[in-house]
């Protein structure tokens, strides 16, 4: 996240007048500007993890409210619950024409969401989101923590508008300066700055800010100060000190309070007062003056220092661009399910003497990234020992870190236990299918519609496609269904004969059952054979067609093309990927490449993807069940069956609980 410095502004793709402020030529100079620019965002929302909207503002009436199409609901469903791997907090999530950015307030169990048009490249969104979160948390701390009543947060609206106005003004200022990009604005400069660390930082006028000579402030501190300068934050350094009595973030506490008080007392509006845009912003502030009741002092000069501070901010932001969330950590951890409100009110106040001594001794410890990192390394190693693919392990560790950072655990409770407690539901969530896995019910529905139900088995060589196909066939025959097996492996010699033996055996085990083999020999086009098989089945009253395909390595492009063709031509009801439980990292590679090939080579608009997984050779792996997790995580699709042995009856449904237990066991 580099503040969009490297992105060209989207001055050409302007759709509506509201976008105008992005174009360098049209920096508005009159007070109405703030109204225009507000329409750049579509929706801003604060919601609890339980789904309750605390505060929301819709700037555009066109955002769909139907849950299936609302971008916020979609975010919660697809990204936060289903854990869509392609979306992450840095890049945001795009839904239809909307871009959604979000951040968690873990301490208070809130989600902050900003929705805007994808076509806009708003460089200030990340800062806005963070400032939004900070402002909201600090203003309504008590309200948020009080679970016993519904509170109104309506007064936040004006504050948010002020914040937005200031950030947009800054952004407009930046794009105005943009045309010939100065060295000072480039990443290279920021890197130089970072290298120089503190000392000579204040050399150029653009970066002259928050007091030359003072120690560099952390990102979080700057943001706090900016909020203060806007008259939006907590009233003063002193107030902060007392209200945050419980906060003891070790490296930050002293430096922050010290510098913020010094800033409050110092005059800070000299160098930039003449800029033309200042008038616009100042009047914005004046116009929304009612919002500033909370601020301590002169609202009118508030906007100017904010600009300075923003400058400082820009100067040193850079490589990672993440605000350090540790700032607000030391608050009470929020526990939605904790009924007992007394704990919430009792803890954070400081009280002298013995009590505070005991509190220090037993008080819950706020988790920081640094606390978690060593444990995460261990957890990751444990998971990899259980055969979880390393990408998946990394991602899980990251998400556990994210959800635990900022929460509190008791001093005497073990960190590893807390981590595992946090991990258990997320593992269950990953492994729990998001759609029904009741194949029989699907088949009955197809039967009612008078058509055969088709299942294609795909996978790499030697994983047991034909074996598992015949096991599933056995189960279907037990349920009195008529099954046709289509031998579409026209590649490997002996494949058709193998199936023929299976069909003979199955017929012998189930006298009276209808099971047939549909084969056209070797070397033919599998897609055509499958098609013929399906029409043969429809004509002859078969209920299910099981399509056996040739095993193929995921990198073999000609064979993958052939598979995509088979899928496109026949559009089977289910595409089942057969994978070995033995694989580790390979599992992710196989699945992503199969899915990618189905997508790339299909040539249709909405390509099919793998619908489910059969995990074979599960009896060989003891407790190294990681492949089950890697596969479900990679595809988001369920494991329908697990192959556990050599006979037709060695087929099981996956039991989520037992897999989770094996994963978490030492």
């Amino acid at each position, binding site marked *: 996240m580099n503040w969009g410095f490297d992105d060209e502004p989207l001055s050409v793709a302007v759709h509506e007048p509201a976008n105008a402020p992005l174009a360098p030529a049209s920096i508005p100079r009159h007070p109405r500007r703030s109204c225009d620019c507000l329409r750049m965002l579509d929706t801003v929302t604060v919601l609890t993890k339980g789904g309750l909207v605390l505060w929301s503002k819709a700037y555009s009436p066109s955002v769909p409210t139907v849950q299936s199409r609302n971008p916020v*609901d979609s975010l919660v469903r697809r990204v936060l619950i289903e854990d869509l791997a392609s979306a992450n907090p840095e890049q945001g999530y795009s839904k239809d024409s909307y871009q959604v950015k979000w951040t968690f307030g873990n301490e208070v169990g809130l989600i902050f969401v900003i929705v805007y048009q994808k076509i806009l490249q708003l460089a200030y969104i990340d800062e806005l989101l963070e400032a939004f979160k900070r402002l909201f948390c600090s203003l309504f701390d008590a309200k948020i923590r009080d679970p016993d009543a519904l509170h109104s947060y309506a007064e936040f609206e004006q504050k948010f508008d002020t914040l937005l106005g200031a950030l947009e003004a800054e952004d407009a200022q930046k794009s105005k300066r943009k045309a010939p990009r100065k060295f000072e604005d480039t990443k290279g400069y920021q890197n130089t700055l970072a290298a120089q660390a503190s000392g000579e930082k204040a050399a150029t006028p653009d970066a002259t800010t928050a007091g030359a000579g003072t120690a560099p402030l952390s990102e979080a501190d700057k943001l706090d100060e900016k909020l203060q300068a806007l008259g939006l934050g907590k009233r003063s350094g002193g107030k902060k000190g007392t209200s945050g009595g419980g906060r003891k973030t070790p490296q930050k506490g002293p430096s922050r309070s010290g510098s913020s008080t010094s800033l409050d007392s110092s005059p800070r509006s000299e160098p930039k007062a003449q800029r033309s845009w200042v008038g616009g912003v100042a009047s914005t502030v004046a116009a929304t003056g009612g919002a500033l009741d909370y601020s301590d002092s002169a609202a009118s000069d508030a906007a100017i220092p904010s600009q300075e501070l923003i400058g400082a901010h820009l100067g040193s932001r850079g490589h990672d661009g993440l605000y350090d969330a540790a700032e607000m950590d030391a608050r009470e951890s929020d526990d939605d399910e904790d009924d007992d409100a007394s704990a919430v009110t009792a803890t954070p106040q400081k009280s002298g003497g013995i009590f505070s001594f005991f509190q220090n001794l037993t008080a819950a410890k706020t988790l920081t990234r640094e606390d978690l990192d060593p444990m995460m390394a261990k957890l990751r190693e444990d998971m990899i020992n259980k055969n979880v693919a390393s990408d998946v392990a990394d991602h899980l560790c990251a998400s556990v870190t994210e959800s635990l950072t900022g929460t509190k655990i008791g001093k005497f409770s073990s960190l590893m236990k807390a981590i595992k407690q946090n991990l258990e539901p997320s593992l269950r969530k990953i492994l729990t299918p998001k*759609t029904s896995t009741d194949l029989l019910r699907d088949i009955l529905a197809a039967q009612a519609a008078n058509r055969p139900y088709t299942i294609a088995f795909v996978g790499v060589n030697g994983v047991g496609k034909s074996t598992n196909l015949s096991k599933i066939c056995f189960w279907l025959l037990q349920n009195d269904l008529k099954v046709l097996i289509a031998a579409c492996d026209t590649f490997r010699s002996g494949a058709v004969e193998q199936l023929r033996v299976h069909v003979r055996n199955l017929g012998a085990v189930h006298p009276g059952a209808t099971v047939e083999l549909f084969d056209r020999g070797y070397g033919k086009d599998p897609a055509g054979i499958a098609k013929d098989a399906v029409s043969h089945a429809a004509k002859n009253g078969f209920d299910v067609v099981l399509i056996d395909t040739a095993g193929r390595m995921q990198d073999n492009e000609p064979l993958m093309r052939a598979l995509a063709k088979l899928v496109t031509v026949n559009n089977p009801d289910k595409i089942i990927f057969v994978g070995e439980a033995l694989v580790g990292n390979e599992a992710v590679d196989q699945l992503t490449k199969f899915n990618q090939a189905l997508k790339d080579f299909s040539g249709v608009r909405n390509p099919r993807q793998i619908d489910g997984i059969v995990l074979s050779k599960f009896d060989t792996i003891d407790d190294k069940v990681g492949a089950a997790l890697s596969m479900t995580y990679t595809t988001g699709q369920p494991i329908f069956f697990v192959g556990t042995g050599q006979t037709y009856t060695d087929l099981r*449904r*996956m*039991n989520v609980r037992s897999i989770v237990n094996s994963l978490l066991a030492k």
Partner: protein
Amino acid sequence: MSSEYARVATDALPEALRPDYLTPNAAIGIAFLAGALFLALAAWFLLKKKKGAKRDKVLLTGLSEAGKTVLFMQLRHGETVATHTSMESNESRFSLPTSYSTPTTPGPSVHLVDLPGHEKLRFKYTEHIATTGAIVFVLDSTTIARDLRAVAEYLYDILVNRYTQRNEVPLLVLCNKSELLMALPVEKIRVLLEGEIEKLRTSRAAEIQSLDDSGEQEELLGVEGEKFAFEQLANPVSFAKCSLIAPAGEAHPRGPREVMDFIENVL
């Protein structure tokens, strides 16, 4: 120091009970009484605890977008609020305002749990089901025809759960959004659900055994050999329609009457 306290304490006792005056018989008697008292207290606490841990939860279940969180907030706070998809449960213990309750005599205390409806989070009901006294299953009357299978599967899972069966937990199927044009009538929804559960019953019975199955076989829902109907179940299943976001004038300030009555009856 401590002997001082002991002396003061002994002096405060009635004469007959002071150690110097106690006869051996009396001492045994007192010890016996104290023991009996202790046992009685322990038993009382245990019973109370057991009763406290007993099934006092009311679960709000159903698919996403049915209106569970809105219902929760109406029951809890008496307000209709804007919501998005939940990713965690909402849970609260409070006293339910009923027809007869006044500020001085609050209604019965309920422990209301609003579970997220997303398929991947559905397993959360299993954490609560053992201590559940009543279940409200909320569904969207307008999309029931489309989502019939998903709704029926969730309902089936709840009904077939061994705790639901063992405890005969009453269940209310709340057909929300009945004010909308597309809404199906309650009777129709009931018939649809019964038909779908009938099919699920067959397919579930034929399902492949699960890994690490402890041999616990799910019981067949309803009566074997007959078409499934909710009356066949041991636990009472009732249906009601409601409109949580009712047109102006008809709105229930504190949640729909049907739900309040249901919970009141159960508690």
